[in-house]
């Protein structure tokens, strides 16, 4: 897998840490490759992401489509306030609700 996304797996959970600040047309393909790493519970960590445009939204939708097909749960973590606004606007938040670090930590321990 590309070094644009780092995988952290525990049990049925995988956290995909996006390691680029810009989810856009340039980084889309490398991020899409991480679709293959999805697990029944998949969390996308946006902590390092400072920019997402519609090319970025399109690639995130690939994760949504795959999660729906496989019956997986998909969450977004550490979204900036601006991106929370955008996700609400386009209703991405319906398909990829946000999760807090602290909710995740219970999974990590188990």
């Amino acid at each position, binding site marked *: 897998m590309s070094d644009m996304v780092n995988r952290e797996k525990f049990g049925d959970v995988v956290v995909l840490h996006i390691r680029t600040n*810009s989810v*856009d*047309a*340039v980084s889309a393909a490398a991020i899409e490759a991480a679709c293959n790493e999805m697990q029944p519970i998949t969390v996308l960590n946006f902590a390092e992401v400072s*920019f997402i*445009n*519609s*090319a970025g*939204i*399109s690639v995130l*939708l690939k994760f*949504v*489509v795959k999660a*729906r097909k496989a019956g997986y749960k998909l969450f977004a973590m550490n979204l*900036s*306030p*601006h991106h929370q*606004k*955008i996700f609400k*606007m*386009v*209703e*991405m938040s*319906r*398909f990829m609700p946000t999760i807090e670090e602290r909710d995740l930590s219970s999974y990590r321990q188990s």
Partner: protein
Amino acid sequence: MQDNQHVEVNIPSNPIFERVVRASAAEIGEALDFPEDRIEDLKLAVSEAVTNAIEHGNQNMIHKLVEIVFALDQEKLEVRITDQGSGIGEMILPSEVVMITEQTLDERTGGGFGLSLIKAMVDDCEVQSSNRGTIIILRLYRKGQEQ
């Protein structure tokens, strides 16, 4: 900020250079003392317009240019993005933000957010298109700011 200052950026139709324009937009927003959230709005709108100019307008033909003019005055920031494409066929500026639905996902479309996001991010936008290219004009007013 004195009246009518223009910053101009010209890029070849390579998506990597959209990031240059976006970074320029962010600095210009800072120069105008826009609040942080408004700078994010500006970056997104400019990014979408430049991406459309590269992909739809210039059809990724690297030698075709996208010209971006940032015109600053006391009242507003106006950004004009011009491509060398053959224009937008049917000109429909979306009136509402395009949303993701079950249908979007089933049909794996996932496009069509660009223009609607632009409209949502700026105060005012305008498109002029002919068979010699498209100009999209974005305006962000400096209301409520010290000038």
